[in-house]
């Protein structure tokens, strides 16, 4: 089975059912299917072939949803780029995957001059929101996305199938310890397997209505679309959780049954007077990206006694690892649960041998949801994917330390690398440090995560200016904001004369983080 079948089968089964609610507009399955087919034809006319990569650089929108399926229908591989990505990184991503096509919005064209000149492989650009003015000059072929979707001269029926299920369907870029983001290669089979397992344990039915505020560039957000279309439900897609009361209203207005969150969202929800509201249709809340604090769980349980809370854990490389059945939440609140259906999880020691219950080791995931590797990074791939029990099989070494109890429930112990998790996003300290090191006047910089009530971890930069140079926190933050997505921009900046070093001469992140925990309560403007 291929991923685009999720839409095609639901459109055949219930063409007039509302598939998507976005920005006050409602779209049926038949409408989305016809538009995705037209865009697929247009992509093919614009040099997109089987296996080509096509990037989607859009806010959460109906165009973004249609694009995912249209790219797959054209036999190509979709790459959803975070809409907050800045020009330099966008160029890097487009070149790294040698994207043949880009689907974006007119308002974003101004921010991507380089992305349209330094990308020799990019041929066609599909523009939502109307075409740019005549003075906008580019060598790329521009297509009017809105006109394409409604062009009755384009076929509204699906093009002939070009792929098989072991072909690539998506590249999802994720932060790595090396600094540059890595493209996680997912086949149709990987995605269909993960979506099947997750919708099985969530017991999704066609009458489920999911409200998602998560960006499609985040696999947790992407899968809300894929899974809702797989089980033939309705997705209410919002751009963000920025205005929380609007979300509270939507939960009831749209009779939402499923609400995926991250701890940052629960922290904000719990700042509102939830007790003043009733959510009679809400069946479940899911949480992943970072563990829900026990106090959040306690309060949510008290305020929403009829809502099932699924505590989950995963990583992009296999989508999801585990889920805690809601009836276990009171019994083992600290557990992230057990492996999902059709997936095996186990713990190994340094030598790769399975360890007994209760022992700490590295978590290994085995299943058809495990990625094919990192795009054109064979060495990094070999570090994560290692031989499994069957010939030629590879299993995922997660890099996360866990222990498992006698009944197979997993407990997170720590990470083997120094990746920071903030607002549900993974941030490579190295990526932020690279930007800091490129700042005029910076001699040395280190980035650590410090505990933060709302964000999980907040990013703290520690900077040693060059001799005689005076830098302020505001200058450092400004510099980072020009180069990095908002969630990667440090919240705190400290200045140091000397860094604590380890015996091998490396900066001691542990000591910096400990110093950070003490000073992180200081406001952003405190300069030294």
């Amino acid at each position, binding site marked *: 089975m291929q991923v685009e079948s999720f839409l095609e089968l639901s459109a055949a089964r219930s063409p007039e059912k509302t598939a998507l609610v976005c920005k006050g507009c409602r779209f049926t399955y038949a409408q989305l299917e016809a538009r995705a087919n037209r865009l697929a034809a247009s992509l093919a006319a614009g040099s997109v072939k089987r296996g080509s990569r096509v990037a989607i650089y859009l*806010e959460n929108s109906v165009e973004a949803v249609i694009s995912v399926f249209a790219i797959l229908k054209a036999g190509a591989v979709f790459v959803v780029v975070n*809409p*907050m990505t800045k020009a330099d990184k966008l160029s890097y991503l487009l070149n790294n995957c040698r994207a043949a096509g880009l689907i974006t919005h007119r*308002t974003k064209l101004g921010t991507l001059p380089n992305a349209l000149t330094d990308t020799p492989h990019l041929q066609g650009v599909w523009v939502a929101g109307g075409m740019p003015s005549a003075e906008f000059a580019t060598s790329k072929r521009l297509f009017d996305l809105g006109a394409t979707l409604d062009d009755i001269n384009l076929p509204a029926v699906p093009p002939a199938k070009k792929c098989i299920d072991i072909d690539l369907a998506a590249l999802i870029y994720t932060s790595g310890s090396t600094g540059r983001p890595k493209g996680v290669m997912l086949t149709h089979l990987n995605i269909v397997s993960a979506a099947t397992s997750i919708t099985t344990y969530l017991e999704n039915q066609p009458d489920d209505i999911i409200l998602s505020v998560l960006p499609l560039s985040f696999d947790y957000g992407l899968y809300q679309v894929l899974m809702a279309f797989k089980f033939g439900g309705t997705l209410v897609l919002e*751009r*963000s*959780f*920025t*205005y*929380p*009361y*609007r979300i*509270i*209203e939507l939960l009831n207005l749209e009779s939402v049954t499923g609400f995926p969150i991250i701890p*940052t*969202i629960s922290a*904000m929800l719990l*700042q*509102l*007077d939830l007790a*003043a509201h009733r959510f009679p249709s809400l069946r479940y809340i899911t949480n992943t990206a970072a563990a829900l604090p026990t106090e959040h769980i306690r309060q949510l349980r008290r305020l929403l006694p009829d809502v099932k809370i699924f505590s989950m854990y995963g990583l992009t490389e296999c989508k999801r690892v585990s889920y805690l059945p809601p009836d276990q939440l009171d019994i083992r609140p600290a557990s992230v649960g057990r492996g999902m259906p059709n997936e095996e999880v186990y713990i190994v020691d340094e030598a790769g041998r399975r360890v007994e219950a209760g022992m700490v080791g590295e978590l290994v995931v085995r299943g058809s949801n495990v990625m094919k590797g990192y795009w054109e990074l064979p060495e990094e791939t070999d570090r994560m994917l290692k031989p499994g029990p069957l010939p030629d099989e590879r299993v995922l070494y997660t890099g996360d330390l866990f222990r498992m109890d006698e009944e197979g429930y997993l407990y997170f112990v720590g990470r083997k690398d120094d990746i920071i998790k903030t*607002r549900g996003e993974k941030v490579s300290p190295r990526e932020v440090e690279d930007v800091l090191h490129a700042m005029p006047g910076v001699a040395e910089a280190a980035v650590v995560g410090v505990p933060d009530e*709302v*964000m999980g971890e907040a990013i703290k930069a520690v900077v040693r200016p060059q001799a005689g140079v005076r830098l302020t926190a*505001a200058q450092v*933050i*400004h510099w980072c*904001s*020009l180069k990095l997505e*908002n*969630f990667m*921009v440090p919240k705190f900046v400290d200045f140091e004369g000397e860094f604590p070093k380890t015996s091998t001469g490396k900066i001691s992140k542990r000591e910096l983080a400990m110093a950070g925990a003490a000073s992180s309560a200081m406001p952003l403007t405190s300069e030294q």
Partner: protein
Amino acid sequence: MPLNDELRRFVTENFMFGKVGNGFADGDSFLERGIIDSTGVMELVAFLEEQYGIKLHDEDLIPDNLDSINGLARFVESRLQPN
């Protein structure tokens, strides 16, 4: 300082880190322009409460009130006027 300018100054200094290159109009949506995110809204609420001595309720946390300079100005003015 006129209300719009005061609000603009806060938004520019706190969410755009003083960036002036990417100007935005008083009617522009902060969300659309990528100016604000969910943690930013909480800072904005704290600023409005402190600066203007008004109290924001849960139901005030909607885009109509908070998502543009014009929206903010309208909202603050409506709260400052005695009913």
